[in-house]
């Protein structure tokens, strides 16, 4: 089957994706799992919420991903005084030879990869504008609607510590993120490599562009075509439904979570060069898909349970 012209393209695309991951790995030491899920999120045409302490290379990681995939990158540093128009863009008066006119000046959200740093420091109004644009894939200003570029990927970060002066994202808005990824501190040997890598050279490690816009879009289309067995699909749905019935969970995940889990599983299968979804895909992605979509019961929190613990219990 591998000699079918159509499928030859698929093989080439899967090889390029593998190469892209290797390229990012040249610059980002460790964090293999986070990196893989970032690619999965891009292939599944989703958005990710990254939670980590400062200084773990989130910005470098996202910027590198944008570089190897030839995607336009922009960064928004969220602060309490950030206005929605600072993100989406605004109409400005521009002087011309024939007079003045209102021109829409696109904001930083008009990029393929948008890094919204510390999103919980923006006001709810600004958060809502960002997330609405993220969901609708378009921005409306001055009666005009502007399409966001395709592919479009928002990576928002938030700090789990230092919650003073922050505005926690409402559940309805966190639900719009396909993944919530937790970036852990690197292992000792990895940290040693990071120190060696970034203290012995004056310049950043170069990476090559491997994928184009078109290839990313094609990969996203192919991901949707990856077949999934009915029982695996049902297992994903059942897992999400059980979050609504589990004793340790006060509010469970929505059907959007079911869709996210299935399409993300397909993307992971594609990224791994497979033509079908396996059970391992669903199990690997259950926590990133569900952990920000469930609210634990206070008794479970009192017992020290985390959303990941509850999801692991539900997977068994």
């Amino acid at each position, binding site marked *: *089957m591998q000699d*079918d012209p159509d*499928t030859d393209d698929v093989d080439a695309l899967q090889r390029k994706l593998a190469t892209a991951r290797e390229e990012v790995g040249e610059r980002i030491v460790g964090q293999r799992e986070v990196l893989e899920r970032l690619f999965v999120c891009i292939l599944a045409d989703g958005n990710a919420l990254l939670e980590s302490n400062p200084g773990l290379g989130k910005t470098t990681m996202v910027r590198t991903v944008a570089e190897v995939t030839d995607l336009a990158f922009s960064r928004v540093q969220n602060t309490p005084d950030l206005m929605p128009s600072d993100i989406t863009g605004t109409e400005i008066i521009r002087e011309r030879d024939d007079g003045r006119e209102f021109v829409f000046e696109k904001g930083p959200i008009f990029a393929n990869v948008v890094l919204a740093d510390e999103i919980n420091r923006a006001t709810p109004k600004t958060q809502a504008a960002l997330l609405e644009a993220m969901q609708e894939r378009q921005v409306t200003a001055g009666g005009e609607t502007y399409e966001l570029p395709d592919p479009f990927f928002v990576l928002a970060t938030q700090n789990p510590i230092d919650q003073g002066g922050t505005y926690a994202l409402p559940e309805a808005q966190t639900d719009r993120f396909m993944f919530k990824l937790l970036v852990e501190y690197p292992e000792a040997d990895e940290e040693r490599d990071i120190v060696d890598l970034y203290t012995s050279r004056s310049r950043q490690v170069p990476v090559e562009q491997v994928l184009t816009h078109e290839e990313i879009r094609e990969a996203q289309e*192919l991901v949707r*075509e990856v077949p999934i067995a009915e*029982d*695996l699909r049902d297992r994903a749905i059942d897992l999400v439904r059980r979050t609504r019935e589990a004793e340790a969970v006060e509010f469970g995940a929505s059907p959007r979570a079911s869709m996210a889990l299935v399409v993300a599983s397909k993307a992971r299968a594609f990224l791994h060069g497979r*033509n*079908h*979804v396996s059970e391992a895909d669903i199990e690997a992605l259950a926590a990133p898909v569900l952990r920000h979509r469930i609210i634990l019961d206070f008794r479970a929190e009192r017992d020290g349970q985390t959303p990941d613990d509850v999801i692991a219990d539900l997977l068994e």
Partner: protein
Amino acid sequence: MSDEPGDAAPSGGTESTESAGSGSDDARDRMATALAEIRREAWKAAVTAAVVEAAALFLASNLVLAALDPSWLPDRLLVPASATEPVGSALGRDLGTVAVPGSATVAAGVGALALAVGIWLRVRKPLVEQFEAVNPGVAEKLRTARDAVDADADSRMARRLYGEVLADLRESSSVGLLNVARLGAVAVAVAALSLATVQVAVVDLALFDRPQPATDGAADEPENYTGLLDGDRILGDREEVSTGDENQTAEIESSGGGRDVAENRTFPDRGSSGAGGGSSGAVDSQQAGFAAPEQVEDADLVREYNRRIRDDTGDGGGEDGDGDRGSDDGST
């Protein structure tokens, strides 16, 4: 049973997919054909195992019934004429009354039931899933491909999956559908039961005697067959027989008669025989007895004999009152 269900595909993946355009339908059709072949293989495996086990059960049942010889089981069962007539007409001859052994009939019923149950137990679980269970390497993708075929999926990724599964199926085997160890054990049991059945048929290992119907010991009742006996035990030890070397003259003398045996002698005819022609002594007639229930037809004959004996006694014992018809001591 084919080892490679993937061979069910009409052609190899390389050849068929080279023809662009028809490739999409080809891949799905070949996958559907392969799935059908897998189901056939699973059916074969189910029937094979069930037949062997049913045969074992048939033989075991037959053996047990033959050994126990239960009283409720008739020796032979008549086959209804409605069943034999069509067969007879097909063969072109009259089969007459056909009877089959009772134990074999019951055992055949048990075997048929075991066959049906055995097949049902094996095919109640989806056949392709059984194949997946014994081929874990291809299970997940085969399961996905099966659902994709059912959903009539024909995307590029689905076609890639079909091709991959078909290639993997060529490396997989349906032999695992058969529990070879169990099948071997049952086959050994079948062989042992077959030998035991032959043994019982020849020697009759009846464990318990069948209750015998009450008889009055009539002479004409056939003896019950008790099986073959040991010939040596009956005839004794074998020994050489040599020709005798001594000639001996045997002389037989008669007493009570004054004449040679070769002389002309007259014997009373059958109708006048009796005690009347015997010795000079009178012979008292006795009433002959008979078992009235069994030999009623002899009563008249006995009565006639008695009458003749009385007549002979009454008229002086016939023409030769000194008993020429025979001596008193019975010698001739």
